């Protein structure tokens, strides 16, 4: 585990969508090489946080800051954030009909790395990553996410992460809709991409994926705020008890002190 200063730091982040406050003061610090899991009930604001970190135009940060390598990125365009090394694996990846996965990813890599890369060189790079993630090569020629199954879309998100080599990956429910073998494949894929200079924030409802992508910290978000943080055991406790019981205990504990 890394010990240096957090390179990714969220402080008192408040976010509104169409004038409804969804995030109500999120704090989170991530160091290089760390994996943080965020869990929480439906509608608690996890995807809102993910979208805000990537710069979705409908999400307005009304207070707080998000520091990446010491710089507040909240005013930056999504593509600038991608260039800084931030990556979001979408809970619901979008289809781009008519654009092959290969063409899309080559354009994307050129944009992120801000340099030319020959078609031949890129093809090699992509096929290597596909083989590593056990994704059929035929997906390179298919239109991006067009007609893909739910699970295939999730695996393409991981492929994109492997190709773009981000410094910080936010994975929003990368395990939802996956069959048991696919969770293993995706989980192992993520850990093979992970390296000591990279950080991951993984949003999930189930501890299963966390057996492959072992978090250093687990956070529980409820109602737009992180209410509880702990180690891996928190995820398991949550699975055993459910949010209601666990959060009641938290409330009791905090009122007793």
């Amino acid at each position: 585990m890394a010990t240096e200063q957090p390179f990714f730091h969220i402080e008192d982040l408040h976010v509104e969508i169409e004038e409804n406050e969804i995030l109500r003061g999120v704090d989170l610090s991530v160091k290089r090489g760390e994996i943080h899991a965020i869990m929480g009930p439906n509608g608690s604001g996890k995807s809102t946080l993910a979208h805000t970190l990537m710069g979705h135009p409908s999400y307005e940060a009304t207070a707080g800051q998000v520091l990446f390598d010491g710089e507040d990125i909240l005013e930056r365009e999504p593509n600038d954030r991608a260039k800084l090394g931030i990556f979001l694996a979408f809970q619901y990846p979008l289809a781009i009909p008519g654009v092959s996965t290969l063409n899309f990813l080559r354009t994307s890599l050129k944009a992120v790395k801000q340099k030319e890369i020959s078609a031949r060189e890129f093809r090699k790079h992509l096929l290597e990553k596909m083989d590593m993630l056990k994704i059929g090569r035929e997906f390179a020629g298919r239109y991006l996410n067009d007609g893909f199954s739910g699970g295939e879309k999730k695996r393409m998100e991981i492929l994109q992460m492997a190709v773009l080599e981000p410094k910080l990956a936010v994975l929003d429910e990368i395990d939802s809709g996956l069959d048991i073998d696919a969770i293993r494949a995706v989980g192992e894929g993520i850990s093979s991409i992970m390296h000591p200079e990279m950080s991951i924030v993984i949003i999930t409802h189930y501890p299963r994926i966390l057996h492959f992508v072992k978090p250093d910290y687990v956070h529980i978000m409820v109602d737009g705020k992180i209410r509880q943080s702990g180690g891996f055991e928190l995820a398991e406790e949550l699975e055993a008890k459910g949010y209601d019981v666990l959060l009641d205990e938290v409330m009791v504990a905090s009122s007793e002190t």
Partner: protein
Amino acid sequence: MAVTEQDIQESKRVYKEKYGFADPDQAIYKAPKGLDPDRVIEISQMKNEPEWMLEFRLKSLEIFNKKPMPKWGADLSKIPFDDLSYFVRTTEKQGTTWEDVPEYIKDTFDKLGIPEAERKFLAGVSAQYESEVVYHSIQKDLEAKGVIFLSTEEGLEQHPELFRQYFGTVIPSADNKFAAMNGAFWSGGSFVYVPPGVQVTIPLQAYFRINAEQMGQFERTLIIVDEGAYVHYVEGCTAPVYSTDSFHSGVIEIIVKKNARCRYTTIQNWSTNVYNLVTQRSAVYAGGVMEWVDANLGSNITMKYPSVYLMEPGAKGDILSIAYAGDGQVLDAGGKAIHVAPNTSSKIISKSISQHGGRTSFRGLLKIYKGAEKSKSAMRCDALILDEASRSDTYPTIEIEEEQVSLGHEAVVSRIGEDQLFYLMSRGLGESEAAGMIVSGFIEPIVKELPMEYAVEMNRLIQLQMDKAVG
């Protein structure tokens, strides 16, 4: 996405620079303005035509005068018929080498990249400037196999019987007002004949250039693909940007005989002061295949519905079209499939994009006559609207007189979604690049049908538009 005046001006500037430049008017003959019958007689005399053609022209003019303006489609009430010149000659002699062509005209075609394309990937070229073809060529080996690729006037002169057998049979002048107008004033266009079994594997291209202000151009093309033969004919067009309007009304007749195949590709990129009203129709016989690939980017108003008449069993027709309308443009396009014989099949697929207040309309007609049993047809139109100021409509018509047929019809209108843009931007693409990628993907199913060189050009034209479109 908000549209600003600046975006619009910028996209116009790009057209003007690349295609919209004008040569000084150096015509050697320019007909006085207006639709007088004397003009028709004059054209016929200047072309030394046989008597029957003069009669055809005069009869057509009569029909034109009698027929009312179409009441559907785009607004045609502002066409300045009396201010247009209907015949402009720029040279006495048609060239077969570029050296034969007046220098300023050659320069224009050089700027448009025609001689270069001819050297690189074409089997033959016809270049029309104002009312007449000024240059044409065809590869020697094709000529040796009996392939004919001439201007329409030369076709009439050199192959009078073949010409007369087919001319006006697929689109009679009585078909519609503008076909009649073309019948009266036609000038230029191509005459193509491909003998039985001959495969012309690389495209023939015709390029149409209007240079003069306020003129009417009336290309007339006749293509006969004999049994088992194949040809791909590509046409392109551009014009200078003027504040006055010009007019282009073509008639394209194609005969696809038994087991023959013809592909006709249009990349229409007129300046936005040109009215473009074109009738394109093909008669397809047993087992024959006709494919129209129709891309409309330019013009002020376009009304154009390439048609297939499936005359004998097994005939097949595909009509693929793209329309891309910007500021002030009304592109009314689509296709018609008429099934006359059993076991015939057709596909009409259209993709349209509107931005900057442009307007696209899809008009599709599918008609299956009694007796055309076991016929199949699918009609599909997708519209992509890029901003609030723009608009798209669909007008499908389906008339079926036979029960045993298989039909599909689908229409989808969409806008570029914020989420789609966000997804691409989160992968490093700038906003205009992201929008350009979505648009290229949208038209990809049709663009991939274009020869590679045209597909590249098409995507480039669209990215140029997009760069200015997203602010």
